[in-house]
């Protein structure tokens, strides 16, 4: 465990659960999707992160202060969200701690949700979703369940680090990435990502409310999107548009 970051547990943590990570990133896809899961499945807060690397912020909900980076769960599922744009330099330590903690809690698999920026997003009716996995066996499982794989390209940010650290710990990791706006909140992309998640897990929720509340979410998410964009610029997120060279 790193000195500057620690996870404080509030409730017993289930083992053999799937850990979903939805941190603020492209189109806030992962954050919107994971927050919706927490609300629809009525998950309770089981832990939170305390770190000097995060700004000195608490979030008030119904008058009660909460840490911005929190972990929710039930018997089968652990969900990590942050209501704060994570400062780019802190991302390494924070992601390493989340993956280490996941390993200590014997999670079955880490699924990181996010978006892939796409320039002509407004002319796409239904965003496509792509997946990446930490090993070939998992990739085959994704393909067998109808998920398209992200064959070539770069992943930058929380999904990249969850994948990197999971591989080094020989843990199973998947990234589910929906085509989305780069710096506009994209609830529809979040719904598409959740739809694909349901194909490879027992995590199934009715997505109609998420789509209905799309405009409201876009209004509410403007501030966190703006701050997330600043951090995405710092972590060179635009590299996701690059074509990789692998001869």
């Amino acid at each position, binding site marked *: 465990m790193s000195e500057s970051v620690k996870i404080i547990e509030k409730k017993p943590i289930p083992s053999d659960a799937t850990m979903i990570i939805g941190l603020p990133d492209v189109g806030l896809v992962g954050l919107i999707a994971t927050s919706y899961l927490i609300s629809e499945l009525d998950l309770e807060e089981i832990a939170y992160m305390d770190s000097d690397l995060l700004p000195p912020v608490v979030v008030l909900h119904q008058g009660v202060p909460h840490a911005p980076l929190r972990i929710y769960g039930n018997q089968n599922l652990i969900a990590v969200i942050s209501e704060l744009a994570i400062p780019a330099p802190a991302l390494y330590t924070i992601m390493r701690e989340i993956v280490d903690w996941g390993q200590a809690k014997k999670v079955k698999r880490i699924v990181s949700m996010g978006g892939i920026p796409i320039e002509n*997003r*407004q*002319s796409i009716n239904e965003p496509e979703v792509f997946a990446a996995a930490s090993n070939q066996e998992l990739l085959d499982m994704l393909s067998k369940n109808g998920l398209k794989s992200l064959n070539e390209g770069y992943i930058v940010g929380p999904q990249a680090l969850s994948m990197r650290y999971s591989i080094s710990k020989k843990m199973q990791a998947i990234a589910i990435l929906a085509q989305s*706006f780069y*710096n*506009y*909140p994209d609830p529809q992309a979040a719904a598409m990502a959740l739809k694909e998640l349901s194909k490879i897990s027992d995590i199934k929720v009715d997505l109609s409310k998420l789509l209905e509340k*799309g*405009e*409201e979410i*876009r*209004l*509410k998410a*403007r*501030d966190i*999107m*703006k*701050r997330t*964009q*600043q951090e995405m*610029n*710092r972590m060179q997120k635009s590299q996701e548009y690059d074509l990789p060279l692998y001869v």
Partner: protein
Amino acid sequence: MSEKRKKLSNLDTLNEYLEEIKTLTDKLMGFASPEGPSWNTETCCLHALSNVFITPREVIVTADLPNIEPETVKVEAVDENIIEITAKMKKKVRFADLGISHRQGEFSFLRCQGRVDVAVDAEKMKISCEKGILEVRFPRKNIHELE
């Protein structure tokens, strides 16, 4: 000055430069996305997210405008370099609707401004709005037109 002190002094200078670069970067990031509330209770406006893309032939301004009446969208040039977009919302939004109890105010409009640092032909702008994303395309003025 001893060799060791000279090395230390070089290192200090380098550190000073790095610190200066960091300060400038933070400042630039601040300009890119200035601090301040994303609303204005006096004008009853919520600030919309927006982007400006400059290509060799045109300038494209986009804005995220959820919950608006598309026919109320206005695109105006505030001055030579600033484009302002406003639109009326379908339904007024109050702080209370956003769960905020320690502020009062209601908002009827979404507004944003985009900085365009090249000459454009505002009369030939084309506006489209899909899924609440407004896109305004301005052809860039050619050099001979400017002359």
